[in-house]
């Protein structure tokens, strides 16, 4: 079943057009990845989906509802959560406060507690640092916090922007294993990555973006084998 579908979406920053008629879809239960070079429009696409930016044209359908132009909080209420680029944690709040903020719109105290435990089970390091200011965390821990916080909203669809950015290779692998684990628990994942190899190796489907347009798409392993992709994004 299609969870999210973009059709011919344009986004402008002032006079500059960042997205030119992007179309793709994400099926429920999948990991879908957007890959592409810097400036291809990956982050802009996520921002348009989560309501941080308003598309100038086109449609964004989420669970059969037209959500283009919705404010972010309305999408969070519908189970769509965006863990932004650069983690976007709140350094002036404690780790626990950051996590609770992820559950801002929820009222089911028991469910919140359960998801908090799930987050701590995924990332035991966060449990140890529960009362610390999030600004004191290392880069990797902040990334864990960002993902755990996104999960606190009990999302159906989670948008992850560059979760591997600036992390040591072993940590990157751990984060990606966690993403797969989250997906197995029933959360659909839309992943934006510069690390195309890693992203395609866990993704069911991939879309390649170039200067604001989708130029190629296919199953993860297909794209991984495609000579064009290998040449352009995997350095071969």
């Amino acid at each position, binding site marked *: 079943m299609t969870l999210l579908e973009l059709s011919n979406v344009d986004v402008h920053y002032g006079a500059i057009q960042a997205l030119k008629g992007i179309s793709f879809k994400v099926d429920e239960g999948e990991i879908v990845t957007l890959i592409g070079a810097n400036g291809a429009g990956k982050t802009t696409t996520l921002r348009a989906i989560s309501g941080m930016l308003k598309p100038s044209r086109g449609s964004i359908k989420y669970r059969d509802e037209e959500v283009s132009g919705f404010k*972010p909080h309305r999408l969070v209420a519908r189970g769509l959560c965006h863990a932004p680029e650069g983690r976007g944690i*709140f350094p002036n709040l404690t780790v626990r406060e950051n996590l609770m903020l992820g559950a*801002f719109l929820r009222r089911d105290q028991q469910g919140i507690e359960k998801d908090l435990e799930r987050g701590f089970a995924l990332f035991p390091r966060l449990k140890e640092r529960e009362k610390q200011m999030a600004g004191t965390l290392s880069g990797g821990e*902040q990334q864990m916090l960002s993902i755990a916080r996104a999960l606190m*909203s009990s999302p159906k669809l989670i948008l992850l922007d560059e979760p591997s950015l600036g992390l040591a290779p072993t940590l990157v692998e751990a984060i990606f294993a966690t993403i797969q684990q989250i997906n197995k628990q029933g959360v659909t994942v839309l992943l934006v990555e510069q690390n195309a190899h890693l992203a395609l190796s866990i993704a069911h489907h991939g879309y390649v973006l170039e200067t604001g347009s989708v130029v190629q798409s296919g199953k993860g392993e297909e794209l991984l084998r495609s000579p064009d992709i290998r040449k352009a994004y995997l350095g071969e």
Partner: protein
Amino acid sequence: MTELLQHLVNGVSLGAIYALIALGYTMVYGVLKLINFAHGDVFMLGAMVGWYASARWTNEARDPSIAGALAVTLLAMVVCGTVGFVIERAAYRPLRGSPRINSLITAIGVSFFLEYGGQYLFGPNPRAFGVLPHRANFIGGGISVGYVDLVTIGTSIVLMALLQRIVFHTRMGTAMRAVSWNPSVAALMGVNIDLVISFTFVLGSSLAAVAGILYASKYPSVHPLMGLMPGLKAFVAAVLGGIGNVPGAMLGGLLLGLAEQLVSGYTSSSWRDAVAFSILILILLVKPSGLLGRTDAEKV
């Protein structure tokens, strides 16, 4: 020694009022990065509503009681909270996203609107104010503490404790702190930014209303331009403590009140205002982020 203690008590009382006003400046700056120059006039409005409620519409001022003072204060809080809400909605929200200078100029415009609107309705002349029952000064160890000062200090402590609780221990407070760090990410958590900003204006404006009532009781008069100087002083206090920082505004207000009182006590009261603004210049030169202000966290 007793003279010093006396100045300290007076300074704390004045500082508590500055702190109450400074909190509004600092909270609004926190969530909106806007210096709301109309805030001093909301403070004036609080005192003016107090005057109407106690001297014009009722006889409270002639026969003051504690219950009456509370009722007058609550009314002023409600009116100022509403006005704060409307100011944000009508004047600042349409300009959100435009260059900051536009909002700043608008804030000055709103300030003029309230000042001259006040002169039109109320007339330019000061009027006597009194909502608290008269009590003799408390005298102990050679220090005399006015009843109004005691009430001021007590009220401020209660309000600041309450505010501290709201900002640091409630969902709305957590949302305010999140918005003040990064509004767009806060929105991604499901926080309704507009709601948080409205809440902040209502909260800050109702604190200013209480400050207005206390200030007008301390210097028992009300006039439409009375918000000018205390508003500027409270702004200095907010900058001194670190604009955007709630405990900083309390500390800044207190320090400024003490500094003013000590300077006017030991030299001359004509130096009072000069001291306040010298502090502003000094803090901007030496530590622009203020005493408790944040220096932006490093990006890892």
